[in-house]
């Protein structure tokens, strides 16, 4: 493969292979180009779950519109949208956090859309007031605790995690993570910067170990006994409980979940959401896709396969979610999460929550 014994002049072969370059580039470029005749919708998505892929396929079956996806983190996608400007091929932006959708809106990357279908499906709390973005699923930041070592009665509020009694018992992931940032933003909205910072310092002092890993790692570490309580999104526990892997299920059994602040503002809720981009070339298709994603069928799929809460009222929850029961959620307008994002990051930096 590397040395051929042929005696033909090497130069000709090398130059010949150089001619390959433009050919190959061309062949590749064609892959990125669109076939004009086929209706498409171009998606920039931060959600990369198999559920979503299946839903997109279903959408294509129903509508005949092909869904093309670039998946990356919301931040990278926003940076890309900004630079592409009017020439952007993207039609919709999907994020896992309302704060990022708000940021995209602030930067003029989204446009408002509305329809009766959307009005009916998505409650006011879970969408932008002017229709710049709509929530697709709800995610709740809960406390996961070790059943054998923690009395859930003693832990009622997020604020309690900063108390001395939890010294050496709290595990958390890095503050780079958007779930933590948005949670901190909700705290700032509720109690103000100073108190939020004091809370962060208290939690940092209570860490069982330095922040690391993802949400599942936090749950595992609680189950294994590294720490006793963790701040995580609820669906990660749901996924572990319903995992195909017996050991993961067993692990999750050792962990209980509790919805904090039920006697005051409620648990912190965020949405994974979608917005139509400002210069969407296929605006109509984009709207169709959003309407499909908030339809009963799609909402059920989100809830069943990924254990997120549907935004659409009246859609049945997955059995695991039903077992956890109803809960009160923080009514804070979600756009605030975006507005307070930078303040939240700075608080983490000052408190030494890396």
């Amino acid at each position: 493969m590397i040395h051929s014994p042929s005696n033909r002049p090497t130069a000709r072969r090398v130059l010949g292979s150089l001619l390959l370059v433009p050919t190959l580039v061309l062949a590749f470029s064609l892959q990125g180009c669109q076939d004009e005749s086929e209706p498409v919708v171009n998606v920039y998505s931060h959600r990369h779950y198999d559920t979503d892929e299946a839903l997109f396929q279903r959408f294509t079956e129903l509508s005949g519109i092909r869904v093309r996806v670039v998946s990356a983190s919301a931040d990278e996608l926003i940076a890309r949208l900004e630079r592409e400007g009017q020439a952007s091929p993207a039609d919709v932006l999907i994020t896992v956090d309302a704060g990022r959708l708000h940021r995209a809106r602030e930067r003029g990357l989204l446009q408002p859309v509305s329809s009766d279908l959307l009005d009916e499906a998505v409650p006011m709390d879970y969408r932008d007031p002017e229709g710049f973005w709509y929530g697709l699923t709800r995610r709740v930041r809960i406390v996961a605790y070790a059943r054998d070592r923690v009395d859930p009665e003693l832990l009622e509020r997020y604020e309690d995690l900063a108390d001395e009694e939890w010294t050496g018992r709290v595990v958390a992931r890095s503050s780079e993570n958007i779930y933590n940032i948005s949670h901190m933003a909700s705290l700032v909205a509720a109690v103000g910067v100073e108190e939020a910072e004091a809370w962060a310092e208290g939690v940092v002092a209570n860490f069982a170990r330095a922040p690391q890993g993802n949400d599942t790692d936090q749950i595992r570490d609680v189950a294994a006994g590294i720490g006793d309580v963790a701040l995580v999104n609820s669906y990660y526990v749901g996924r572990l409980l319903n995992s195909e892997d017996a050991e993961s299920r067993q692990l999750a059994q050792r962990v209980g979940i509790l919805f904090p602040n039920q006697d005051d503002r409620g648990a912190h809720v965020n949405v994974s959401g979608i917005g139509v981009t400002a210069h969407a070339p296929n605006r109509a298709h984009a709207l169709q896709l959003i309407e499909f994603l908030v339809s009963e069928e799609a909402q059920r799929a989100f809830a069943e396969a990924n254990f997120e809460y549907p935004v659409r009222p009246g859609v049945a929850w997955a059995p695991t979610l039903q077992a956890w029961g109803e809960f009160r959620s923080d009514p804070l307008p979600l756009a605030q999460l975006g507005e307070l994002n930078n303040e939240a990051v700075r608080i983490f930096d000052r408190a030494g929550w890396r």
Partner: protein
Amino acid sequence: MAIAFSRGWARDRFRPRLRAHLTPWTLVTFAIVALVLLPLASVLLGIFGESSDTWRHLASTVLADYLGNSAILALGVGVLTLVIGVGTAWLVATCEFPGRRFLETGLILPLAMPTYIMAYTYAEVLSHSGPVQGVLQIFLDPVTTASIRTGLMSLPGAVFILSLVLYPYVYLITRASFLKQSGGILETSRILGKSGWASFRQVALPMARPAVVAGVTLVLMEVLNEYGAVKYFGVSTFTTGIFRAWFSLGDTPSAIRLSACLLAFVFLLILAERAQRGRARFDHGSSRFRPVAPFRLRGARAWLATGACTVPVVLGFVVPVGQLLVWTAEVVPEALDRRFLWLALNSFGLALVSALIAVAAALIIVYSVRLSPTPLLRLASRASSLGYSIPGAVIAVGVLVPFIWVDRRLLELLAPITGSGVGLLLTGTVAALVFAYVVRFLAVALNPVDSGFERICGNLDETSRSLGSPPLRTLRRVNVPLLKGTLLSAGLLVFVDVLKELPLTLILRPFDFDTLATRAFQLAMDEQVAESALPALLIVMVGLLPVVLINRLIGRERGETGGPDGEEPKPKATGGVPAGAGDLVGAAREGAGGAQAT
């Protein structure tokens, strides 16, 4: 009068130079270098923006942390790779012990592991359901065993993981240097009563110093560039800081400033490496070169040597690849579908195209410097390899800015002709991606091509030219045939680097376009580590190709050294890396690129 005089003086002085710079070769070279520097310039220009509020916040809170962590990481990995790399190189190059021949090759294998795959794999190996905890739980309580994984995912853990993947750079270059030292010198040292250890410390090591330093410098650059593994472990370094400022805080200027700080570090490294090399000469000076006669170790010492050389291979390659194989076996029936074939095709296609372009560009640059070696041209060629020292994500931003601008102009230009719907010709297709790869990995091709040319006697060119062949034909008929092997290996190195590349690919790839690396990374991020094993394994396996090639070339080099004295090309005093294998070894981690080996 005075003015006229000075003008005339200037004309006389500069005209020949100007003419030297106006050949087609030189112009093409300048064009290539300008293109390559374009993304860097677009990033660096950002430094001159106003110092933002965010920057002051970063400087007063976390900057010290980034500095500290990056420094500890660099120091830790530097020391550990130094110890592992030099130690194993010395044993393998000068001693004889059981399994030496096998370990000689085996020690290079970890080079094929991308750091992010290594990090995920180890985290899973040490996880609750992994094999290590399974065994340990028999003896220890679950909290202690669980803390093994917690312990790994930390700064020391990152040092451990990075050292295991990076030590082969030091090993390769140092071993090549030891092999090139004349056996006579070491024998003299031993005859004069020095022990093996003293000979190593007082004779061999000082002579190999430039090689060792070159190897460690490459390691340090890789460390400063590192993103995937440290991010997963939650260690904040300069690179993760760039992402934080850019994304979490949405402040591009601060991100650019951090990148510039990082760049300053890298330049310091390059300067330090060049300074330590100084004017000293490190060749053996004797025309009577004999390879070192291996010193036969016996008994316990022999087995100790075997053990010492086995550990890095097992930890750096056997364990992670074994785990990947186990996972692959679990998922292969479902994972090996059409989609996977597309992934592989995408990856290989991209890597092939980028490798061809990078090698062609390197050939043009090096050849035009050879044709007219002016200081300006040398500087340009050196600058063109800077991309290697810059984090992939930073290059991605740098590429996007000018390319989007061109795309918009193109769109305006083409709109009347084609109607709308052309789309983004550069950033919407793989063109931007390929360009960014070439910017990042040009040094990888430049280094071997450069040292390959140095081994071709200039008289050959001159003879060909004086017989009437223009430069292009000389290149085609004389140089390229002589450089065949070098060009192939340079291409192979670029190929593998492109295959492994992650952050840049994530940002710049077009719609519906996944590569092996992006798919493996995403699956692992989504906690489907087993499913990520198949693409990861393929990357590692293909990554083995250059490893094998490098080894074969060094082996051949050693074979040649036994030949008649006259035929042996004298080792250059460049980083102690011998010519021949040197071009590949240097290229094995090109790093500072041209700056490194020229």
